[in-house]
């Protein structure tokens, strides 16, 4: 099913080739007992992600891309198929909407995973300080979530997902609800963070533009029941400039290619 439209991209920090995530023949269905109806969410999903790679999954709403991510995160069970994640810890997740806990301050939100693990207060403070600096939140450390903009809240989510330094980062349309300028800023910052930390990232989006901006590879999903219909390498060099890369003709060729695939995906 894989369609290669260009050679694998050269990245400034190439993946070492080891497989971090392997998904084989994944099937997920939902059963609605009141209507006695079965809905097939995804069917026969196959892909692998190499260690240190940044992979985006694009697809129309309801194609099951979020479901795939939730299964990777262990928040849902697959009906059948195999999911193998080669990592010491469970993947960390950055959620779609405001997932910042409203009763905690920004610093307490970022510290949340550490505080559950009983990390000493001193260590928590140091680590949270680093993450707040990394995400530009230092001066908001003691703010309450309701005082923050949408962009700020998503920075908190990103900082929280990074705080306990897990190898795999799963991102579920984290910037979907933001305005375009904020999204561009956060995309640039995310790329910077990724380049520094070398995480393996699986990033869900319905925005073709966002996928091409961020990813080493873009997986295109069909409408429900979702399956991977294409696996495209994104050739832009790293580090990327999210604004400048739009001057590259290849960006628009790839945009066209992905749109063509999305438009051609058969309705099941």
């Amino acid at each position: 099913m894989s369609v290669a439209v260009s050679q694998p991209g050269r990245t400034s920090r190439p993946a070492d080739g080891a497989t971090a995530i392997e998904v084989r023949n994944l099937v997920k269905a939902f059963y609605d007992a009141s209507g006695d109806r079965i809905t097939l969410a995804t069917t026969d999903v196959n892909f692998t992600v190499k260690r240190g790679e940044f992979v985006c999954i694009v697809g129309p709403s309801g194609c099951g891309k979020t479901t795939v991510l939730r299964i990777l995160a262990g928040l849902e069970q697959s009906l059948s198929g195999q999911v193998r994640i080669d990592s010491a810890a469970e993947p960390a997740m950055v959620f779609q909407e405001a997932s910042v806990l409203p009763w905690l301050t920004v610093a307490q939100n970022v510290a949340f995973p550490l505080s559950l693990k009983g990390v000493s207060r001193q260590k928590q403070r140091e680590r949270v300080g680093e993450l707040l600096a990394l995400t530009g939140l230092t001066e908001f450390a003691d703010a309450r979530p309701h005082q923050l903009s949408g962009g700020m809240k998503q920075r908190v989510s990103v900082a929280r997902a990074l705080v306990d330094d897990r190898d795999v980062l799963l991102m579920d349309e984290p910037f979907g609800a933001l305005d375009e300028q904020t999204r561009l800023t956060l995309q640039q910052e995310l790329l910077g963070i990724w380049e520094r930390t070398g995480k393996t990232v699986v990033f869900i989006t319905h925005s073709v533009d966002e996928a091409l901006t961020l990813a080493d590879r873009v997986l295109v999903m069909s409408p429900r029941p979702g399956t991977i219909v294409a696996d495209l390498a994104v050739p832009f060099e790293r580090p990327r400039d999210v604004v400048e890369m739009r001057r590259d003709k290849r960006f628009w060729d790839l945009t066209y290619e992905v749109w063509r695939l999305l438009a051609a995906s058969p309705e099941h």
Partner: protein
Amino acid sequence: MTTAHPSLTPDEIERLKAPARREKLHRILSYFSPLLLLLLWELAAQAALIDRRFFPPPSAIAGTAWQMIVSLELFEHIGATLRRVAVGYAMGAIPGVLLGLILGLSAPVRRILGPIFAALYPVPKIAILPLILLIFGVGDASKFVVIAIGVFFLMFYNTLGGVMQIPQIYLDVARNAGATRFQTFRRIALPSALPSIFTGLKLAAGSSFIIIAAAEFLGARSGVGFFIWASWQTFAVSRMFVGIVVISLMGYLTILALEALERRFVPWAKH
């Protein structure tokens, strides 16, 4: 984040701060609004629009109250009532909140045990008071129990409702961060449900004073409820009203105190 801002004129700063100041004024006025009711009553009694034998004017009741305060007569009754409410309230609220959290978080437990609470809840607490008096005697224990039962259900259902409304995403965040069941309970469910828990605490405080008044009518030798009943029996209507005002005031002040606690512990919710 600072109040002084060089590029704003004093007038602009003034207008900027006006809504917050109005809100503060509203809060101050809210303490006095119940007094309006007393004023209407006084005027009606003075104008003989209502029968003074049954509804003496608040000024006459205040005179009686003053004598009773000076003679320290009422404080013993207030103390007895407060003790019964406080103990019964705690006995009902703590298990109510805990069971509300457990049933809220666990769908199987909720489906299986939920009907027990649904069946018991509509039983009027006062209707079972004779039974409770029989089992626990006419002392304080029976008052603790009847209040605890009333408080329990209000706390249970408010906490349950609060937990059921927790956005799934908060539970997902906890799970993804590796929270244990107890950590999810303590760190997510409890704070999420806190606004509903406070609603329950306020409702339960109000109903505690209703229940204790009735309970003290029936089987007590002390307490504000007993005092109201005893005054009525001797047709000391002014004294009866003092009792009614005192017990209402006790309920009102308790709710004010709970609201202060709510602002302290639920700073993220709107008030």
